[in-house]
């Protein structure tokens, strides 16, 4: 019996952490083996799911359409590129009027710039317009998953954390702070004017930039 390949899970990661990633790897020599982006908090990502605000879109193609979208979350900006090989996503980007909440399922892509640094973007499998409820739910989910990864970062059996320590020199604690700040941002917009929570009392007090 042939074993159907297992579908790769879509990781939840904020833009800040996603854009800090640069190392990609495969886990087998097979040509078609999945390529993973190593997340700085110690997880492999062959697919991501993100929800944010499409703030700008531009056809950057020469000849053929090639759409670039900027999608903003509470921590930074995802860059999404869709061309002729992603026809549905490209046509969605063409039709959408920013600003709009969008959900994106896609694959991480890296490319090296002329100055040798690595940029990360998303090659979308799908882009759909969604509502603010979906966006808020994603922020909560992405924060929880990020905090779980940070929590598991010191586990000895966590091979991707070990890989992240070898490949990156990034302060993992910072991703914990941005995740908490993202939740605080939601909480504040939730109940404007309410002062029953004293932010300065949180354990993440020094979150000033």
């Amino acid at each position, binding site marked *: *019996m042939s*074993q159907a390949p*297992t*579908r*790769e*899970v*879509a*990781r*939840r990661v904020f833009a800040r952490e996603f854009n800090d990633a640069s190392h990609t790897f495969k886990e087998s020599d097979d040509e078609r083996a999945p390529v993973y982006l190593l997340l700085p908090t110690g997880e492999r990502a062959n*697919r991501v*799911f993100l*929800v944010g605000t499409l703030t700008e879109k531009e056809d950057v193609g020469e000849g053929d359409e090639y759409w670039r979208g900027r999608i903003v979350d509470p921590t930074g900006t995802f860059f999404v590129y869709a061309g002729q090989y992603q026809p*549905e996503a490209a046509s*969605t980007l063409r039709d959408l009027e920013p600003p709009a909440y*969008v*959900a*994106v*399922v896609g694959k991480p892509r890296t490319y090296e710039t002329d100055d040798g640094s690595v940029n990360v973007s998303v090659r979308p*499998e*799908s882009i*759909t*317009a*969604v*509502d603010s*409820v*979906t966006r*808020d*739910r*994603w*922020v*909560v*989910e992405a*924060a*929880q*998953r990020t*905090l*779980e990864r940070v*929590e598991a970062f010191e586990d*000895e*059996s966590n091979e991707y954390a070990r890989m992240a320590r070898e490949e990156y020199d990034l302060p993992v604690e910072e991703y914990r702070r941005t*995740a*908490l700040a993202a*939740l*605080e941002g*939601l*909480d504040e917009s*939730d*109940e404007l004017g309410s002062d029953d*929570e004293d932010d300065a009392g*949180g*354990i*993440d007090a020094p979150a000033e930039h």
Partner: protein
Amino acid sequence: MTDLHTHAEDIVAQFSDHLDLTVDEVEERLENLVNEYRVPVDEARRSVVNSYLDEAGLERDALGGGGNASVGLAEIDQDEQWLDVTAKVVELWEPRSDSVAQVGLLGDETGTTKFVAFETSDLPELEEGAVYRLENLVTDEYQGNFSVKLNRTTTITEVDEDIEVGDDAETVEGALVDIQSGSGLIKRCPEEDCTRVLQNGRCSEHGSVEGEFDLRIKGVLDDGEAVHEVIFDRESTESLTGTTLEEAKDMAMDALDTTVVADEMRTGTLGRYYRVSGPQFGRYVLVDEFERLDDPVDAEAALIEARSI
């Protein structure tokens, strides 16, 4: 560590005919492997069982008869576990491979699980709807789904009783990240009891046929940790998308293309969060009930929980 305690009890029971073990000593060995040496529980159990097999001078297969675990069919959570069950043959399916003699669903009070009997095992045939005492089955795992295999050593005794098969609906939730091909407006084979989905107007069993239109969605729910494949039938697809079969046919007619239906469905559902429940068949959860998770999130509660991590 009640989990290890349960494993220890199982192991003591497995070896009750051969070795005089206490639950405490077995649990201690498991604990040592799991807690000190960070061995996964399954592996720890295998290793402890192996060492006792050595001690007793037994082959793994000899642990049959008497020593098998009795686990509810819907509660199987280990690979290669030997079981005795009393179960009803809920359904028989068409074997897809010549090496398979019979394949279908067995059910007991806890729910159902898939079973497979191979030609080489040369077993008597099971009848749909009948209840049997089956001894010496072995569990199998594929992509997180468990099934049981009958084998040459399996004994089959028909039992004169009926079993109320349990409802083992799975509930899964996550973002809908994909609607797979074969979704939307489809055609099914009209032959009696067939209902296979046609590919380019052909049924894999009956060849070229005049198909009957139907709606379904083969979707993927993803919670960031695991993926769950789900199938919405016509009724649940209509209620998920707000598009009826008749409307879908009109859309396809207008566009002279059936794929517009699935495209429209993708636009309206992908990227949203859902919770669905229904029975699990193979890789798929068949959606009986679903809800869109569109209550506003409780950011304060999430923050309190997050700070505690």
